């Protein structure tokens, strides 16, 4: 694997105005929330909503924009004796890791102000994995569409689907099938959406889990167990891996 390209793109991105302002923006929010709440649990919960909303959105949109913007650079690289796989992998890893670093760095002020806690470490972990997952999805949508507008449009649709529509559909299903035992079904369904998975993993770590009553207890039973932890980690990894593999497949067959 060619590290040089990865390093080059990575540092280029870290220096870019967008990534820096993204980190600063998150830092401002997290510092503000931590300053006004003074309670690390509440801070974690508020920042959880921010992370679940913003990280996927930024990763998707900026991922697509970056992909289209570096099309000429990619074309240039491909004229050299480098495989398409190497180029794509470098692009993906560079972008995903720089976005993860920006997200984690943006949350650090809250950590400094409120002190460290396992919930917060979890939050950092979730935001990093969401960055990877949604960068992969962004690359998939961009490599599938040669037109920039369509690619970005598809990214926005993916975001809308996963952060809003998916939940609405699940709620609808729960209401419609409320006469059936749904616990197991819901656990499977939530594991299918990385945003929901992140939310539930954090919620179960906080005392909000007590509100979930009997139903919550069964979720906690699953997600708190080793099997549940492995399953959710597996789901997150799959969410990062599968779109990436599909994207690299499309990229290899793409006509430049």
């Amino acid at each position, binding site marked *: 694997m060619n590290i040089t390209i990865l390093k080059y793109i990575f540092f280029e991105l870290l220096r870019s105005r967008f990534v820096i302002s993204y980190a600063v923006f998150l830092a401002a929010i997290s510092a503000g929330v931590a300053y006004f709440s003074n309670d690390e649990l509440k801070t974690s919960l508020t920042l959880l909503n921010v992370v679940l909303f913003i990280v996927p959105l930024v990763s998707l949109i900026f991922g697509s924009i970056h992909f289209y913007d570096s099309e000429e650079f990619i074309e240039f690289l491909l004229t050299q004796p480098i495989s398409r796989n190497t180029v794509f992998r470098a692009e993906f890893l560079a972008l995903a890791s720089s976005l993860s670093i920006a997200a984690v760095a943006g949350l650090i002020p809250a950590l400094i102000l409120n002190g460290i806690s396992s919930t917060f470490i979890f939050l950092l972990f979730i935001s990093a994995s969401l960055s990877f997952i949604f960068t992969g999805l962004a690359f998939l949508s961009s490599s599938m569409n040669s037109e920039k507008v369509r690619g970005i449009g598809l990214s926005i649709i993916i975001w809308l689907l996963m952060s809003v529509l998916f939940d609405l559909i699940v709620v609808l299903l729960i209401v419609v099938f409320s006469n059936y035992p749904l616990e197991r079904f819901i656990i499977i369904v939530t594991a299918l959406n990385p945003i929901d998975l992140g939310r539930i993993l954090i919620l179960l770590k906080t005392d909000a889990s007590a*509100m979930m009553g009997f139903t919550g207890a069964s979720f906690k039973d699953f997600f708190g167990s080793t099997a549940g932890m492995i399953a959710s980690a597996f789901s997150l990894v799959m969410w990062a891996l599968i779109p990436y593999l599909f994207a690299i497949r499309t990229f290899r067959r793409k006509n430049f």
Partner: protein
Amino acid sequence: MIRIRLNITVLLITLLTASVAGSKEITVCSTCGVTTIAQALAESSDGDVIILKPGIYKEHSLTVANRIELRADEGAVLDADKKGPGITIKHDSVRIAGLTIRNVDVSYINDLSAVMVDNVSGCVIERNVIEDTFFAIYLAGSSMCKVEGNRIQGQAKTESSSGNGIHLWKCSAMYVADNQITGHRDGIYLEFVSSSSIRGNYSGRNLRYGLHFMFSDSNSYSGNTFENNGAGVAVMYSKFIKMTGNTFKNNWGESAYGLLLKELYDGLLEDNLFFRNTAAIHVEGSNRIEIVRNDFIENGWALYLLGNSYENKVTANNFINNTFDVSSNSSRNNNFYSENYWDKYKGYDLNRDGTGDVPYRPVSLFSVILEKSPESIIMLRSVAVDILDAIERVIPSVIPETLIDDRPKFTRYSNDRDKGTS
């Protein structure tokens, strides 16, 4: 030898003076003439004072059959050594003060207790320390007793193998104040108790309830703190209960309430603080309760009113940072809400009279959905649900049409109760 003789002379003198006055003082210590409490009780007659000097007295199953006063110095310990109950009071107007009682064993047949008050009128049990007992203070069929300033500490493990801190059964006109009760099943338990007052107690870390009412009418409790109990307070099958100035705090857990009202009629709930309870108040089949000027802060559910509750009045309360303000299993509203401060209120106040110009609907769509299918709690704090709630508030179609606060307060009621929330 000289000391004993001296003691005997002192005793004789006291006996002499006491008999002159009609009452005597009996001092109990390991070197005194009287070395056991049982002996002192046997020798005592009405009006006597038994003074317990510091030391550990390994005695149990004591019975007080005369009108005496048992005054213990600091360090006087009655250790029942898990062999039986502590003291049973069977005479009117007995006073027990300053005694430390320990180690009354769990029994599944008898209600063993450190102090048992059996069918008397008038007694004072104050400033005692009671540790590791099954029941601590058990009052049955009595009236006009004062239970004040006791420190009660249990080691309850399970509900079935533990007793209550202060247990009142079939009593009237009791005064229970400034006690500290931890680690029992119920902190304070009342069954068939009337006209009694419970004030300034601290009841925490009890397995079931901090305070538990059953079939007890016309009582009041005020200024108490209920913290970290299985559930804060349960008031069941009672009438005319006054609840003022209490703090219900951190009663948090899968089935925890700050306050559970079941079949309570004509209660008054005023100036209380509910802070971080899973459900601050759970109301079931209760009518005509006035919920006035309370603070609901950071609870899961502030008010959970089941549909079988009628004509309750919720006025002038603060609702701050609760996940759900009001929740109900009914689509009708039989209760009255007015002039509360709701932090989620998004209205405006054009004429600046302090009252919002558009009504507030305290029931959110999500809480209605949750009521129908509890599994949807998995969507707690989801963006989608927040959007749904916002839409529903603008154009209500599912949430109870009539459940509204017509005159929502625009600014928070100020009081210094929220000091307790830090």
